[in-house]
């Protein structure tokens, strides 16, 4: 049995390897891509349903009128070859290999990604407020209990999503990146156990409360940064101390015979004088003290140094500007705003600092926080107009299934279709460190593909097939 412990995470869990500081936000993405084959399936009851000898890996060959490689880049009358869970080749002159399963479609695009979801969490974990930065969304995922919702999301074309714990706590802890599968248990593939840190400034009616939460987040990041600095300083100090001690030890060893002789002499003299012999006192530089391990600060340090993105839900102008002001000094911090109802006036700052905003273009009457009901559906379009990186998400709810519809609403209110597709594919993948394996129909990428009968972001397009990790996970015609 493969237990839910991706090997790539043992590496990041180990504090000793966290000493290096990522200067390039995308660096961990590279790591993820390299380790992708080692990622494993979760809730793997699949083994119970498969015959003892699994059949040889079948290839899938897709012929399409249009292949959207990535938003803005299309191939006409093209083919996609899928094998071993990955896209093997994309081109216009590919020939179906013998024995490959051939599918035909009008349009092929990458599977959709929801960066802001609570889909698949067990119900208590989606609402309890006892979380902190160390709680992990993967611990609360229950594919067995959420099979219906997971299947519904998969059928709607959502092949991957970022999941953080729900609840009212300001810090929700480690969010995960998971992929939906077609297993009978509604199982999930966990691609990253530590994809991002989820947080919120709360939905209190009192603006000062919300600002207070924003400031506390800033303080936590600061504490994490200081903690990291202490660790780095300690590493320097202890290295220096060890070198010095080794030198003096070598000298002591060299002088030992002399020291022994003089000691013997002193003992003899003391005996003659009828005095008590006293050992010479030994002094050396004090060993530098190791900073006390603090798991929470360690996690915040990973936020401060940009290893983990920080996704903060904030809606009103006051707390948004408090948050943006407070985090100004952290050059490596990778902030993502979720919600951002009143963020438009701050667009220039967002562009300057390359901060993406996950917009939830939701109809009235949904589970939005009080006071956020009058959400302007044109926000996504307006932000994109100003060159802000726009993502679309299902608002930290389990309504991930509806994300393609929400995207269509956003398009109807001014968001360019191409940007809407980017929001659901490339941009979402990039924001959650998945940009090197997800979001494009490209050789080497994970084969999470949608076979459609029309444009991807449209309420009138229907999904014919969903391919997840190279397997047909949903087929509108039935069967596999």
């Amino acid at each position: 049995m493969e237990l839910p412990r991706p090997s790539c995470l043992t590496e990041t869990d180990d504090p000793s390897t966290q000493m290096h500081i990522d200067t390039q936000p995308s660096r961990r993405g590279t790591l993820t891509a390299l380790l992708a084959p080692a990622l494993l399936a979760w809730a793997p009851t699949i083994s119970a349903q498969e015959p003892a000898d699994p059949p040889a890996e079948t290839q899938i060959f897709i012929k399409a009128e249009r292949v959207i490689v990535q938003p803005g880049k299309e191939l006409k009358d093209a083919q996609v070859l899928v094998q071993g869970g990955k896209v093997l080749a994309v081109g216009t002159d590919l020939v179906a290999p013998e024995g490959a399963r051939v599918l035909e479609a009008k349009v092929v695009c990458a599977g959709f990604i929801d960066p802001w979801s609570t889909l698949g969490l067990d119900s208590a974990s989606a609402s309890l407020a006892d979380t902190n930065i160390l709680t992990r969304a993967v611990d609360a995922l229950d594919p067995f209990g959420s099979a219906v919702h997971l299947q519904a999301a998969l059928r709607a074309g959502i092949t991957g999503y970022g999941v953080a714990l729900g609840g009212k706590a300001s810090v929700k802890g480690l969010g995960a990146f998971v992929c939906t599968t077609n297993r009978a248990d509604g199982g999930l593939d966990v691609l990253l156990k530590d994809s991002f840190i989820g947080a919120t400034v709360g939905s209190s009616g009192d603006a000062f409360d919300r600002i207070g939460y924003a400031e506390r987040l800033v303080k936590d990041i600061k504490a994490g940064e200081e903690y990291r600095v202490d660790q780095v300083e300690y590493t320097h100090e202890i290295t220096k101390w060890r070198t010095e001690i080794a030198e003096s030890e070598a000298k002591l060893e060299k002088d030992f015979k002399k020291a022994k002789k003089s000691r013997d002499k002193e003992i003899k003299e003391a005996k003659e004088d009828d005095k008590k012999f006293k050992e010479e006192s030994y002094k050396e530089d004090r060993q530098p003290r190791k900073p006390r391990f603090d798991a929470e600060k360690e996690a915040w340090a990973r936020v401060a140094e940009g290893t983990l993105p920080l996704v903060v839900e904030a809606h009103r102008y006051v707390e948004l500007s408090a948050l943006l002001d407070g985090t100004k000094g952290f050059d490596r911090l990778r902030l993502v705003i979720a919600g951002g109802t009143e963020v438009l006036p701050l667009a220039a700052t967002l562009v300057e600092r390359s901060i993406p905003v996950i917009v939830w273009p939701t109809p009235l009457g949904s589970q939005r926080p009080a006071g956020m009901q009058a959400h302007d559906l044109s926000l996504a379009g307006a932000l994109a107009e100003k060159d802000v990186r726009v993502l679309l998400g299902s608002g930290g709810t389990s309504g991930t299934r509806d994300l393609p519809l929400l995207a269509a609403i956003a398009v109807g209110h001014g968001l360019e279709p191409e940007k809407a597709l980017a929001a659901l594919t490339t941009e979402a993948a990039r924001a959650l460190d998945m940009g090197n394996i997800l979001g494009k129909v490209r050789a080497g990428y994970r084969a999470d593909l949608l076979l459609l009968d029309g444009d991807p972001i449209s309420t009138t397009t229907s999904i014919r097939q969903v391919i997840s990790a190279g397997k047909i996970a949903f087929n509108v015609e039935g069967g596999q």
Partner: protein
Amino acid sequence: MNISSITRLTAALALTSAVAFGGDSHAIKVGKVITMAGEPIENGIVLIESGRITAVGPASEIQIPWDAEVFEAPNLVAFPGQVEACTSQGMDRANESIDVAPFLNVVDSVDPVNFFYEEMLRAGITTLNVQQGNSTVIAGRGMIVKPSGMTVAAMTVRPEAGIKIAITPNRGKSRAVQLMILREAFAGLRRTLEGLVQEANDGNDHARREALAQGRDFEAEDGKGRAMTGSGWIVEGLEAVPRASIDSKILPLLAIVEGRISVYMACSTPMDVLHGLEIAKENGFLAQTVLLLGPTCWKVSDEIKAAGVRGVILSSTLEHTERAPFAEEDTVTVLPTHFAEKGIPFALASQNSTTESLWFQAARCVALGVDREVALAAITSGPAEVIGLSSEVGTIEKGKHGNLVLLSGDPLSLQTQVRYVFIEGKLTYDRTTDTRLQHLMDGVQPEGTSADEPVVEDIHEEERTAGDK
């Protein structure tokens, strides 16, 4: 005190204390012996010496020693004393409010005069694994007891026989928090041990340099501690730290990681099981782990089998029905059959001492189509194996404890009564002297008590009548 009051006293004591036979050698002669280790024996004899079974066989083959005390019951059926694989009853408080409390011990909480043990004995249960409840993350150390004896020491079969770990959150915690606390407990243990080793080594290095400077010959202190063992993670060089100098609060956790104590892991959902197995594997205690499973956990039985845990204990729910989300078909899974087919050692558990006692659960299994032998094993040899005591209890076999229940009929019949219970060869329960049962079942008033209303003398009667005049 007259003769009859002495008799009454004896009768009252018979329930909880053993009635000593003359010698140490006993022969129990019954109409049938269901050994749970082979075919039943008609007209069988069980020989017990110094608490252990020395021979079992048909009367025609067994020679009763000349000095043996013979207990003859030709109409009764001998059955192995049943084994309750995990219970949180019989303590003055089952649950712990501290999240991580392995430094506590249920030995301080087990209450020998708790009616629970009397009920267990009456139901024919002779071995109980008492562990704390699930309202914690890592509980105190539990123990295996027999339901006889006036002190905890007298009841003890195995002290420190396990620790309860709850994967399923309780008391308003979320799963993520529960697991975070659990992981941190082991991570913290590892950090502490590594710190101790580092400290010891640094101290040793310093002492060596000091000796060099002073011109003394240095002798490193060694052989103080014991190297760490275990199949999970190891802190190298722990032998530099004497075990006695390690905080006793974390020693039981170290015992878990070194595989020296059993772990009873409460899992109510399949995901709980997967998380629990992951944590057990990481920390090297899979082989000592017993899972307490909720009704849906059968879904990960392949993972349970592959992980190689010692066994599982089922809840009182014996069948699970589920409607498939899109196919809308009901799937009924009979849990004992499922685990038996998967080859995973399992035990039944009684949730309370009357309506769902062990034999009743076994009878329900048979009603659900479970093989009779499988059902009977699930309350005797099965739980014995699960709690790691299969060499001692669970069957009537040579070398095992003389724990026998003499029944009036078939073990799974609703009309069968537990007539006598022998624990380690001693007659511990006798239904004819069970005054409480007689009172409840037959309305027999125990001698020396009265059902009449107490007579209260009206001491003011005279005053009142005087006033009337």
